[in-house]
């Protein structure tokens, strides 16, 4: 049963299984295990980034294609929901149409970029995606009438997903294990279930014959061609699929935040974050995305607090409080990345599986 849900791609390592199981349980029960606005927000971001990073891994880890336009696709999905929710009014229909339109547009754009550049060499694809992504980011910030420019768009999601919506008053007195039963809780599970479905779909794709051909192409594209596979078709298909899933992750993000803006969904920093999450978790395995995204988002959200506490503990010592000051958290984040790449060149998953 579990094997078929995971498409036969089991973690193949006891520690890895335990870690992944732990992440899954924490995310599935986040509102109950860690009640609090900030903690639940972090959990929702982790869910969304797992999908986003996994969709990037589909491209980089399985297809061997480097793209810098992944945030653009993410942004297209997010703006899709924002625009339909703004213009059609709040509602699940607006979310559905916005997500579908975003995913379709992202796939179409990926098809266009792919057909133009993947025929030649993968490096041209990287350069073209960089150019297109920058152009789109500029366009979004300039077309302020449509996109809200740098300020972005704030919009309303269906009432059922808002904090003001309450349910279960008669049966549970509005609370379950002390947690308020409101729309925010529903919004979290909307994100969680959406992310789980997308993740399982990707797992199915990479373990399908299509995924095997992609892996073969990554390892030796000439050999795959001389067996009879049109490498360019497979690469373009992978690009489109990855773009569409990134867009859907963007839609989930928009639903969760009820806001989109260039900095949140289109920035180059976000692109670099995605790359780091893939590398830290381990390329060529979707479970790497789970671990990479969890570690990264947790570090982003809690390293500052942790360091603040640590600097308080060593307040009497020389220099150390300065180094551990909460303001230096980015420095330490950088150190952590360098160390993780140095010690886990194949990512956390590669290390735990002990393959190479």
């Amino acid at each position, binding site marked *: 049963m579990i094997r078929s849900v995971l498409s036969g791609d089991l973690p193949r390592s006891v520690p890895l299984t335990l870690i992944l199981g732990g992440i899954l349980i924490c995310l599935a029960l986040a509102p109950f295990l860690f009640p609090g606005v900030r903690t639940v927000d972090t959990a929702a971001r982790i869910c969304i980034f797992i999908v986003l990073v996994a969709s990037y891994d589909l491209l980089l880890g399985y297809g061997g294609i480097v793209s810098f336009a992944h945030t653009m696709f993410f942004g297209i999905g997010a703006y899709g929901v924002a625009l339909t929710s703004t213009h059609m009014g709040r509602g699940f229909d607006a979310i559905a149409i916005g997500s579908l339109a975003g995913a379709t547009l992202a796939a179409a754009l990926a098809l266009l970029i792919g057909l133009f550049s993947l025929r030649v060499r993968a490096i041209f694809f990287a350069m073209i995606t960089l150019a297109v992504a920058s152009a789109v980011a500029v366009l979004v910030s300039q077309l302020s009438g449509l996109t809200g420019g740098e300020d972005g768009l704030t919009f309303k999601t269906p009432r059922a997903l808002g904090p003001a919506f309450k349910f279960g008053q008669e049966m549970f007195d509005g609370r379950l294990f002390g947690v308020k039963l409101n729309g925010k809780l529903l919004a979290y599970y909307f994100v969680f279930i959406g992310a789980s479905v997308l993740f399982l779909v990707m797992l199915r794709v990479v373990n399908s*014959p299509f995924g*095997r*051909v992609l*892996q*073969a192409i990554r*390892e*030796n594209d*000439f*050999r*795959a*061609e*001389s*067996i*009879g*596979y*049109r*490498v360019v078709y497979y690469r373009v298909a992978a690009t489109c699929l990855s773009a569409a899933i990134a867009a859907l992750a963007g839609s989930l993000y928009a639903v969760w935040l009820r806001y989109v803006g260039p900095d949140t969904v289109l920035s180059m920093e976000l692109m670099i974050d995605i790359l780091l999450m893939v590398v830290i978790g381990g390329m*060529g395995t979707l479970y790497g995305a789970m671990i990479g995204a969890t570690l990264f988002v947790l570090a982003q959200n809690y390293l500052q607090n942790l360091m603040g506490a640590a600097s308080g503990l060593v307040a009497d010592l020389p220099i150390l409080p300065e180094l551990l000051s909460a303001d230096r958290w980015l420095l330490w984040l950088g150190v952590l990345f360098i160390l993780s790449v140095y010690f886990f060149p194949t990512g956390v998953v590669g290390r735990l599986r002990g*393959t190479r």
Partner: protein
Amino acid sequence: MSDTILTPNPSDPILRIEGVYTNIAQYHILQGVDLVVPRGGVTMLLGRNGVGKTTTLRSIIGHWRAHQGQILFDGEDITQLPTPAIARLGIGFVPEDMGIFADLTVEENMVLAAVSGPINSARLDWIFTAFPPLKTFWKSEAGTLSGGQKQMLSIARAMIEERKLYLIDEPTKGLAPAIISTMAKALKDLKDQGSSVLLVEQNFAVARALGDSANVMDDGQMIWSGAMAELGGDAALQERLMGLSMEAH
């Protein structure tokens, strides 16, 4: 320059190469290669290192493009076809570097190689008989196989489906003698099934045992074509065409 031309079915060869020139970057590797591969049997492509044997195979499969000349496969001009299309016409290619997919299992490698559908179980049984380690390591990652086992996998991938022509580049290179005889036996099986094989081989003993006809290249051109038996039995001819070093291999 040819002493004799041997073409058993001159009217209908499986592969005919006429005046092919192939450049790699600024190097003119093939300079007017002519080659006829008859239907059925093993055609040897021999010659010293660096004379263009591998480039000839790669020009056939379309990895390198022939700049001039024509390559006719089963009567069809494939000179400008993309590689996947050439492969799907029925050419199985075993490259010199084996090109196995190391991250995939032996099974996955084989499933990928069977492009036209599910694996034929009778054919798989034959492959398991020829190369028992593939059965043992069926579920293992191909990257964990030994060099000889990787070569077996590489050849098995080409043999998993019946192809009209097999291009095999130095299958015994760097292998232990015991594995070389396994290889030779498998190639002999393939030959006995009536397949057409174009084989590049430096091991002269293997070449002599398997080859029906032979073609010798030097400096990007075909310098001799004839019966393998004729070349195999004439030490002076071997020395003239390929230097003495061949016998030492």
